[in-house]
């Protein structure tokens, strides 16, 4: 069933992709092929490729249980939040919080996770910023 859904998504995606491609502006002096042809070829490939799993799906993959889904969703939320607050909190604070939360969800005790978060943030800051000179996000405190 998963393969069938995936195939259907690909087919819909390919139709949408080809439809958008028909609307690409053609410049006044175009080359013989123009900017639309290559997307048409790719769209067709996706359409045909996507149709196959609908007709002949593989074995059902082993999907995680609800709990594991929540864990993954939580991790995605942490990462999105990290990207959003990175500029406001600065690199060290946001990285410490994000990696502490991740390591807590991967099974560390809260105290150890907090220590790991601080360790990872400071470690990366020292290695990449102080030693290697990579520019990291500056927060209100300058780090």
């Amino acid at each position: 069933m998963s393969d069938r859904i995936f195939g259907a998504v690909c087919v819909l995606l390919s139709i949408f992709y080809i439809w958008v491609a028909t609307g690409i502006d053609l410049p006044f002096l175009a080359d013989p092929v123009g900017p639309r042809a290559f997307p048409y070829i790719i769209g067709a490939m996706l359409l045909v490729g996507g149709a196959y799993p609908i007709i002949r799906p593989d074995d059902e993959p082993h999907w995680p249980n609800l709990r594991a889904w929540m864990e993954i969703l939580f991790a995605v939320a942490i990462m999105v939040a990290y990207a959003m607050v990175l500029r406001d909190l600065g690199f060290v604070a946001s990285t410490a919080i994000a990696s502490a939360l991740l390591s807590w969800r991967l099974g560390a005790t809260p105290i150890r996770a907090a220590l790991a978060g601080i360790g990872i943030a400071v470690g990366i800051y020292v290695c990449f910023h102080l030693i290697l000179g990579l520019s990291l996000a500056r927060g209100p405190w300058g780090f």
Partner: protein
Amino acid sequence: METIDSLLYGFSVALTFQNLLLALLGCFLGTIIGALPGLGPSNGVAILIPVAFSLGLPATPALILLTSVYYGAMYGGRISSILLNIPGDEPALMTTLDGYPMARKGQAGEALALSGIASFVGAFFATVGLVLLAPLLVKVALLFGPAEYFALFTVAFATLGGIAAKNQAKAAIAAAIGLAISTIGIDVISGSTRFTFNEVHLYDGIDFLVVIVGLFALSEVFLFLEHRGEGSSSVDAIKVGRVTVPWKMLKESAPTMARGTVIGFLAGVLPGAGASLGSFLAYSVEKRIGDKDKTFGKGDPRGVAAPEAGNNAAAGGALVPMLSLGVPGSGTTAVLLAMLLALNITPGPLLFQKNPEVVWGLIAALFIGNIMLLLLNLPMVSIFVRILQIPPKYLMPAVAMICFVGIYGISGSTFDLMVMVVFGVMGYFLRKLDIPLVPVILGTLLGSEMEKSLRRAMQISDGDWTTLVGSPLAIGLWIFAIVGFVAPMIFGRIVRARQARTITSEANDQD
């Protein structure tokens, strides 16, 4: 003679203090990355590209760093295969078959030393092969016009899954997704915007580094979260002891290493075969030749030497098409190609003419890195064993954060970070559904070059599509592409079944 001159020139480029230091760092990091289960060579190189790139390293040092990581990861994969019975990366799978039984018999030190030497032999002679073969292939590649290049790119996609590919439709889907990603942004030839939906951030297209790091590395973190708490492992159970190898054992496995090297190198050069097939073929050939007393699978040293020589030789062999044609034959070389493109270097025949310092400096660095790796891996292997003991609950967050640091370092844009998370989630689902990730990467990387060669060919022929099959060379490439795509549908089942049989039968023999 010309080759030797070029090689000497390469050594003069590589033998600077900075480059030697980078090679050492790369070898060290690479071995760790290879040894850690779950982080393979493609992942490792993918995480470090943005880092190397945002450090502002020039092309040659950056390449030296990353190819050292690549070679190092191929060495490192064997450590956890032998000690934990968990392959550190996919090609190291075959090493578990005899490596782990050897470790259980108290020969862990011997197995590590022997496999280290086998890795060295494989990688060293493959690099020699690269030196000899690449310039020849360059001469052929210089005959290629845009139409032939378009066919060549098609060959790369068609053969990527290799003979053991499971589902060619899924490979085609993956390639189409990658190519579609590459069409986002402003079309360089006509200047029209495509698939940008009026989002300013998309005008420059999606950076392939963002795609690679998201698909490979972040999706690994999600997989880890799903499987947390399962299959915890400990290294303590096995004592490593002295990491030396008896002279007799070495002499017995010398012919094994030689055969493994040749087989692995050929598997690496051929498109779509890669290191996993290289080590598998090396092991099965060796078993057929040498397994008279049914010792394979029960800790036969030759069963460790063969796959390790094979997979390291394949790693070197895979660099041949990547450097001389600009078309990678494996996942990791695709990632190395991304590195070159990020540095504004287009691999291919012109690279050898325009930037000889990059090519030959790199090749010289491979020789140097190999010797460093041998030295690192014999006396210092216990350090790597200790690093293996860091639990993933601390390691995985660090990996995720380094991904973010690298991508942010390139663009300073939080939009790119969001896009990376999206690709991380996408990578997770694609892996679950058994969609290969490498064609997606390759499509993103090569899409614009592929389109350019198509349109240039059509410009030359003034819109006549038959130009694509207009030369014997192009026709040959198209036939190769079709055969490469169709053959796995016929033979793939047989090859896969045999591969699975070897692994399960050996695993049963251990008990």
